[in-house]
């Protein structure tokens, strides 16, 4: 990092004072409603205090009064640009709580769609990050590909952003072979698109000057700050929930975890670009290995789950009788507490659920990566110019819906 030399006005006899500047909450580069209270010495940030909570909807409190399946659409609204992974994270947590094992096809479908979501989220990150720093073209190109992914989601489930696709114990509906072919075509083409983005900004001198040596954090310190995801891996720490605590089909699939070295904005950018390539690899393997069979477990609770618990389907029953025979006893949710994490595009998304045996969570805590990353903004901005604050906000890939919950 280059040292910024400042000639102070007071040295040459001028009256100077620190400037306080309020950035946000309605600032286009803060990716939502983040408010930063900056104390400036000239153009150098002396102190930075983030204020969050403008988008607080009380999802944790709301979920305490809803049955387990009805909580899931709320999790869509956490990180609204990668809602599929939020849903999957929640479903996995409840499945582990209830002891339900989703069928293999459901696992592969989830993995495939989670990686598509990761690509779309990283595309949006690259688009806005580049736009903030001043590269307009990348923004438009990224949206072109993202649109294709959203179109695929629409084909599967009928919604583009807030999908609510997984279900506790599987997924909501099966995918068709035509869809898989469409994904295959997209995946074949996509790596060349990544090369296009890289042509535009990878060696661009303005991009390099704006990103290299900005927001540097060492690996050890990044862990202490609780950073996760690509923000942590840019500092060279190999921590990926998909590898360390595998869920869904990730333990049957080969992929690498790209790591950075310097822990600056540029390295994190490189990490995310490589991650998109790894996602392509994962999707290819998912399409090849996609097993046949059911998509929803027999033990899965019904959507209109009774607060007492859910009823299991009888194994042998006549398929065409009007009365579906359920076992008479409610399978209650076990009492206990559990933490389960998934690797969201932003970082580690954790769900801590305390169950008291009823059909509603007693306490549901969402450990959202954006919240933790927002806490680290002051550390990353320290001693930088005010324009670099924008680069720092972009690099930690913050979504306020998730930060404020």
């Amino acid at each position, binding site marked *: 990092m280059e040292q910024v030399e400042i000639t102070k006005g007071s040295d040459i006899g001028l009256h100077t004072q620190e400037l306080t500047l309020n950035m946000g909450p309605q600032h286009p580069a803060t990716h939502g409603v983040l408010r930063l209270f900056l104390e400036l010495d000239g153009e150098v940030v002396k102190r930075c205090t983030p204020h969050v909570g403008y988008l607080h909807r009380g999802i944790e409190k709301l979920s305490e009064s809803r049955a387990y399946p009805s909580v899931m*659409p709320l999790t869509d609204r956490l990180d609204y640009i990668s809602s599929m992974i939020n849903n999957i994270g929640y479903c996995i947590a409840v499945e582990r709580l209830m002891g339900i094992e989703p069928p293999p096809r459901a696992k592969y479908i989830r993995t495939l769609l989670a990686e598509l979501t990761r690509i779309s989220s990283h595309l949006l990150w690259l688009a806005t990050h580049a736009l903030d720093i001043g590269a307009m*073209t990348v923004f438009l190109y990224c949206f072109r590909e993202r649109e294709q992914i959203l179109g695929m989601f629409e084909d599967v489930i*009928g919604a583009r952003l807030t999908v609510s696709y997984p279900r506790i114990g599987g997924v*909501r509906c099966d995918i068709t072979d035509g869809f898989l072919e469409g994904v295959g075509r997209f995946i074949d083409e996509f790596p060349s698109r990544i090369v296009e983005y890289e042509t*535009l*900004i990878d060696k661009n001198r303005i991009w390099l000057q704006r990103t290299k040596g900005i927001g540097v954090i060492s690996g050890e310190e990044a862990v202490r700050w609780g950073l996760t995801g690509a923000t942590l891996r840019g500092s060279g720490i190999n921590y990926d929930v998909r590898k360390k605590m595998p869920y869904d089909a990730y333990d049957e699939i080969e992929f690498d975890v790209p790591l950075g070295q310097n822990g600056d904005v540029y390295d994190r950018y490189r990490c995310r670009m490589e991650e998109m390539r790894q996602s392509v690899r994962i999707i290819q393997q998912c399409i090849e290995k996609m097993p046949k069979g059911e998509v929803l477990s027999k033990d899965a609770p019904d959507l209109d789950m009774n607060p007492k618990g859910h009823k299991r389907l009888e194994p042998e029953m006549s398929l065409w009788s009007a009365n*579906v025979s359920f076992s008479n006893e409610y399978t209650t949710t076990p009492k206990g507490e559990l933490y389960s994490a998934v690797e969201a595009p932003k970082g580690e998304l954790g769900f801590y659920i305390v169950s008291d045996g009823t059909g509603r969570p007693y306490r549901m805590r969402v450990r959202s990566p954006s919240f933790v990353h927002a806490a680290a903004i002051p550390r990353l901005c320290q001693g930088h110019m005010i324009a670099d604050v924008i680069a720092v906000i972009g690099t930690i890939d913050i979504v306020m819906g998730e930060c404020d919950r």
Partner: protein
Amino acid sequence: MTFRDLINKALFIEILKGLALTLKVFLTKPVTIKYPHEKRPVSSGFRGRHAMVRDPQTGKELCVACMKCAMVCPSQCIYIKYTGAEGEPRELTKYEIEAYRCIYCGYCVEVCPMNAIVLTEHYEYASYKRQDNYFDKERLLKNWDEHIKSLKATSYSNKFWKPLGIDIGRLPANKRQAEVELKGLSKDDLSQNIKEA
């Protein structure tokens, strides 16, 4: 810095490469569409405006007031009232959906045992008045009429009535053959049906 890097930097090679790419894309066909004039085709099963299915025989709604949709709704925006004693068929007196609060998760469609409610593929229903998107029963039935008018097919089935790949034993009887006949549902036929009934 090597000599090669120096040349690259002096001649703005990386910027020229970028410009060449943008020029290439400039000459290709645009991917954007001119929205109000051109419309993007919506895939089937899109979760758009709500409608209540009109029974082709009676011309009334299919709903039996089982309250399942109101119970499962995560945003709790469905209001139902009914009359009828315990053990007797209920009669629906009020069915209202507040579309501004709805989050379009499709749970009501999936949970309905009668295929009475549906999220149609219609998505252009912004209006100047708030009341326009507070759907009562009549309005929901009208939405359905508008929806089937735009369809060319003779029958209609929604993706969430019978989700693909779900074990048929999980579905209530009506959901197993989830299709609505659209024949005889034009306005004239309907009024005739109602008269006969």
